[in-house]
Protein backbone atom coordinates (compact mmCIF):
# COMPACT_ATOMS: atom_id res chain seq x y z
CA UNK A 1 0.00 0.00 0.00
CA UNK A 2 1.43 3.38 -0.99
CA UNK A 3 1.80 5.90 1.81
CA UNK A 4 0.84 9.56 1.99
CA UNK A 5 2.69 11.57 -0.63
CA UNK A 6 3.65 15.21 -0.23
CA UNK A 7 5.45 17.71 -2.40
CA UNK A 8 7.62 19.62 -2.46
CA UNK A 9 9.85 18.28 0.32
CA UNK A 10 11.59 21.60 0.84
CA UNK A 11 10.74 25.19 0.03
CA UNK A 12 12.54 28.44 0.70
CA UNK A 13 10.70 31.70 0.05
CA UNK A 14 10.89 35.31 1.11
CA UNK A 15 8.30 36.86 3.37
CA UNK A 16 5.22 38.15 1.63
CA UNK A 17 5.59 35.56 -1.14
CA UNK A 18 3.09 32.77 -1.76
CA UNK A 19 3.61 29.05 -1.48
CA UNK A 20 1.50 25.94 -2.06
CA UNK A 21 1.86 22.40 -0.79
CA UNK A 22 0.30 19.29 -2.25
CA UNK A 23 -0.83 16.07 -0.57
CA UNK A 24 -2.06 12.76 -1.93
CA UNK A 25 -3.52 10.59 0.87
CA UNK A 26 -3.66 6.83 1.09
CA UNK A 27 -6.18 5.48 -1.39
CA UNK A 28 -9.62 5.17 0.13
CA UNK A 29 -8.92 7.31 3.19
CA UNK A 30 -11.82 9.67 3.70
CA UNK A 31 -10.20 11.93 6.28
CA UNK A 32 -7.29 14.21 5.49
CA UNK A 33 -5.41 16.47 7.89
CA UNK A 34 -2.93 19.30 7.51
CA UNK A 35 -0.66 19.94 10.48
CA UNK A 36 1.96 22.57 11.20
CA UNK A 37 4.94 21.40 13.25
CA UNK A 38 7.36 23.97 14.55
CA UNK A 39 10.77 22.71 15.59
CA UNK A 40 10.67 21.12 19.05
CA UNK A 41 6.88 21.04 19.21
CA UNK A 42 4.16 18.54 18.48
CA UNK A 43 1.98 18.80 15.38
CA UNK A 44 -0.76 21.42 15.46
CA UNK A 45 -3.87 20.73 13.43
CA UNK A 46 -4.59 23.39 10.82
CA UNK A 47 -7.50 21.82 8.98
CA UNK A 48 -9.32 18.49 8.81
CA UNK A 49 -11.35 17.30 5.82
CA UNK A 50 -13.90 14.51 5.71
CA UNK A 51 -14.12 13.66 2.02
CA UNK A 52 -14.18 17.15 0.50
CA UNK A 53 -15.93 18.89 3.40
CA UNK A 54 -14.17 20.80 6.17
CA UNK A 55 -14.63 19.27 9.64
CA UNK A 56 -12.36 21.56 11.63
CA UNK A 57 -10.40 24.65 10.61
CA UNK A 58 -10.50 26.44 13.95
CA UNK A 59 -6.71 26.86 14.08
CA UNK A 60 -6.19 27.83 10.45
CA UNK A 61 -5.09 31.49 10.08
CA UNK A 62 -7.69 32.20 7.45
CA UNK A 63 -6.36 35.63 6.59
CA UNK A 64 -3.34 33.99 4.95
CA UNK A 65 -3.86 30.23 4.83
CA UNK A 66 -6.30 28.36 2.60
CA UNK A 67 -6.83 24.70 1.81
CA UNK A 68 -8.98 22.70 -0.48
CA UNK A 69 -9.67 19.08 -1.21
CA UNK A 70 -11.29 18.77 -4.57
CA UNK A 71 -13.09 15.50 -5.36
CA UNK A 72 -12.29 14.23 -1.88
CA UNK A 73 -8.81 12.96 -2.77
CA UNK A 74 -5.78 15.25 -3.22
CA UNK A 75 -5.43 18.41 -1.22
CA UNK A 76 -3.49 21.65 -1.45
CA UNK A 77 -2.55 24.05 1.32
CA UNK A 78 -1.62 27.61 0.39
CA UNK A 79 -0.02 30.44 2.30
CA UNK A 80 -0.38 33.94 0.93
CA UNK A 81 1.41 36.07 1.99
CA UNK A 82 3.96 34.16 4.05
CA UNK A 83 5.40 35.49 7.30
CA UNK A 84 8.63 34.61 9.06
CA UNK A 85 6.73 32.70 11.75
CA UNK A 86 5.30 30.34 9.11
CA UNK A 87 8.68 28.61 8.94
CA UNK A 88 7.83 25.05 9.97
CA UNK A 89 7.21 21.56 8.67
CA UNK A 90 3.78 21.08 7.11
CA UNK A 91 2.55 17.55 7.56
CA UNK A 92 -0.30 15.89 5.74
CA UNK A 93 -1.98 12.85 7.26
CA UNK A 94 -4.90 10.65 6.35
CA UNK A 95 -7.09 8.14 8.13
CA UNK A 96 -9.94 5.82 7.30
CA UNK A 97 -12.95 6.30 9.49
CA UNK A 98 -14.95 3.23 10.34
CA UNK A 99 -18.47 3.91 11.54
CA UNK A 100 -18.90 3.14 15.22
CA UNK A 101 -15.21 3.29 16.10
CA UNK A 102 -13.84 6.19 18.06
CA UNK A 103 -10.20 5.54 17.51
CA UNK A 104 -8.45 6.22 14.26
CA UNK A 105 -4.81 5.82 13.32
CA UNK A 106 -3.36 8.66 11.32
CA UNK A 107 -0.82 7.98 8.59
CA UNK A 108 1.58 10.82 7.90
CA UNK A 109 3.49 11.92 4.86
CA UNK A 110 7.15 13.00 5.07
CA UNK A 111 6.22 16.67 5.36
CA UNK A 112 7.28 19.83 3.57
CA UNK A 113 9.93 21.94 5.25
CA UNK A 114 9.22 25.62 4.70
CA UNK A 115 11.74 28.33 5.43
CA UNK A 116 10.56 31.93 5.15
CA UNK A 117 13.38 34.48 4.91
Amino acid at each position, binding site marked *: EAGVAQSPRYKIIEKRQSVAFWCNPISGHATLYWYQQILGQ*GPKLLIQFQNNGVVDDSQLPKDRFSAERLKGVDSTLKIQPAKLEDSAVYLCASSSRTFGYH*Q*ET*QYFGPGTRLLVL
Partner: protein
Amino acid sequence: SQKIEQNSEALNIQEGKTATLTCNYTNYSPAYLQWYRQDPGRGPVFLLLIRENEKEKRKERLKVTFDTTLKQSLFHITASQPADSATYLCALPTGNNRKLIWGLGTSLAVNP
Protein backbone atom coordinates in the same frame (compact mmCIF):
# COMPACT_ATOMS: atom_id res chain seq x y z
CA SER B 1 -8.00 24.31 28.88
CA GLN B 2 -6.85 20.84 27.85
CA LYS B 3 -3.17 20.22 28.19
CA ILE B 4 -0.68 17.41 27.50
CA GLU B 5 2.74 17.22 29.08
CA GLN B 6 5.61 14.93 28.17
CA ASN B 7 9.12 14.68 29.61
CA SER B 8 10.61 17.94 28.44
CA GLU B 9 14.21 16.81 28.72
CA ALA B 10 15.81 14.32 26.38
CA LEU B 11 16.20 10.82 27.73
CA ASN B 12 19.56 9.10 27.35
CA ILE B 13 19.83 5.43 28.23
CA GLN B 14 22.19 2.56 27.68
CA GLU B 15 21.45 -0.14 25.16
CA GLY B 16 19.59 -3.05 26.70
CA LYS B 17 17.93 -0.98 29.43
CA THR B 18 14.24 -0.12 29.62
CA ALA B 19 13.19 3.35 28.50
CA THR B 20 10.15 4.85 30.22
CA LEU B 21 8.43 7.91 28.80
CA THR B 22 5.60 9.81 30.47
CA CYS B 23 2.53 11.52 29.11
CA ASN B 24 0.36 13.50 31.53
CA TYR B 25 -2.87 15.27 30.63
CA THR B 26 -5.22 17.62 32.41
CA ASN B 27 -8.76 18.88 32.19
CA TYR B 28 -10.42 16.12 30.24
CA SER B 29 -11.02 12.39 29.99
CA PRO B 30 -10.03 10.96 26.60
CA ALA B 31 -11.57 7.76 25.32
CA TYR B 32 -8.15 6.58 24.18
CA LEU B 33 -4.55 7.67 23.86
CA GLN B 34 -2.06 7.08 21.05
CA TRP B 35 1.72 6.91 20.91
CA TYR B 36 3.70 7.80 17.79
CA ARG B 37 7.36 7.73 16.85
CA GLN B 38 8.97 10.50 14.82
CA ASP B 39 12.41 10.32 13.23
CA PRO B 40 14.23 13.46 12.02
CA GLY B 41 12.89 14.67 8.69
CA ARG B 42 9.91 12.32 8.75
CA GLY B 43 6.28 12.36 9.76
CA PRO B 44 5.07 10.60 12.93
CA VAL B 45 4.45 6.87 12.72
CA PHE B 46 1.71 5.23 14.77
CA LEU B 47 2.89 2.73 17.40
CA LEU B 48 0.12 1.90 19.86
CA LEU B 49 -3.37 2.89 20.90
CA ILE B 50 -4.77 2.21 24.37
CA ARG B 51 -8.42 2.69 25.33
CA GLU B 52 -9.67 4.15 28.61
CA ASN B 53 -10.88 0.75 29.81
CA GLU B 54 -7.50 -0.90 29.17
CA LYS B 55 -4.82 -0.75 31.81
CA GLU B 56 -1.97 -2.05 29.70
CA LYS B 57 -1.16 -2.90 26.11
CA ARG B 58 1.87 -4.62 24.61
CA LYS B 59 3.41 -4.90 21.17
CA GLU B 60 6.71 -6.72 20.88
CA ARG B 61 9.16 -4.73 23.07
CA LEU B 62 6.69 -1.90 23.62
CA LYS B 63 4.32 -1.56 26.56
CA VAL B 64 1.85 1.22 27.26
CA THR B 65 -0.13 1.80 30.44
CA PHE B 66 -3.07 4.14 30.92
CA ASP B 67 -4.08 5.36 34.38
CA THR B 68 -7.24 7.45 34.06
CA THR B 69 -7.16 8.30 37.77
CA LEU B 70 -3.68 9.75 37.59
CA LYS B 71 -4.38 11.06 34.07
CA GLN B 72 -1.15 9.54 32.91
CA SER B 73 0.20 7.13 30.32
CA LEU B 74 3.59 5.46 30.52
CA PHE B 75 5.38 4.18 27.43
CA HIS B 76 8.06 1.54 27.94
CA ILE B 77 10.62 0.16 25.52
CA THR B 78 12.31 -2.93 26.92
CA ALA B 79 15.72 -4.19 25.78
CA SER B 80 16.27 -0.86 24.06
CA GLN B 81 18.39 -0.62 20.93
CA PRO B 82 20.16 2.33 19.24
CA ALA B 83 17.55 2.02 16.47
CA ASP B 84 14.91 3.05 19.03
CA SER B 85 16.46 6.53 19.17
CA ALA B 86 13.76 8.96 18.04
CA THR B 87 11.19 11.39 19.37
CA TYR B 88 8.08 9.83 20.87
CA LEU B 89 4.79 11.71 20.84
CA CYS B 90 1.56 11.06 22.69
CA ALA B 91 -1.75 12.25 21.29
CA LEU B 92 -5.30 12.32 22.63
CA PRO B 93 -8.63 12.98 20.92
CA THR B 94 -10.74 15.92 21.89
CA GLY B 95 -14.03 17.39 20.81
CA ASN B 96 -16.87 15.92 18.84
CA ASN B 97 -14.73 15.33 15.78
CA ARG B 98 -12.05 13.66 17.94
CA LYS B 99 -9.35 16.04 16.81
CA LEU B 100 -5.99 14.88 18.15
CA ILE B 101 -3.98 17.17 20.35
CA TRP B 102 -0.33 16.35 20.68
CA GLY B 103 2.35 16.55 23.31
CA LEU B 104 5.67 18.20 22.55
CA GLY B 105 7.36 14.81 22.37
CA THR B 106 10.26 13.28 24.26
CA SER B 107 13.58 12.72 22.55
CA LEU B 108 15.11 9.33 23.33
CA ALA B 109 18.72 8.46 22.65
CA VAL B 110 19.87 4.87 23.17
CA ASN B 111 23.62 4.66 23.45
CA PRO B 112 25.47 1.52 22.31
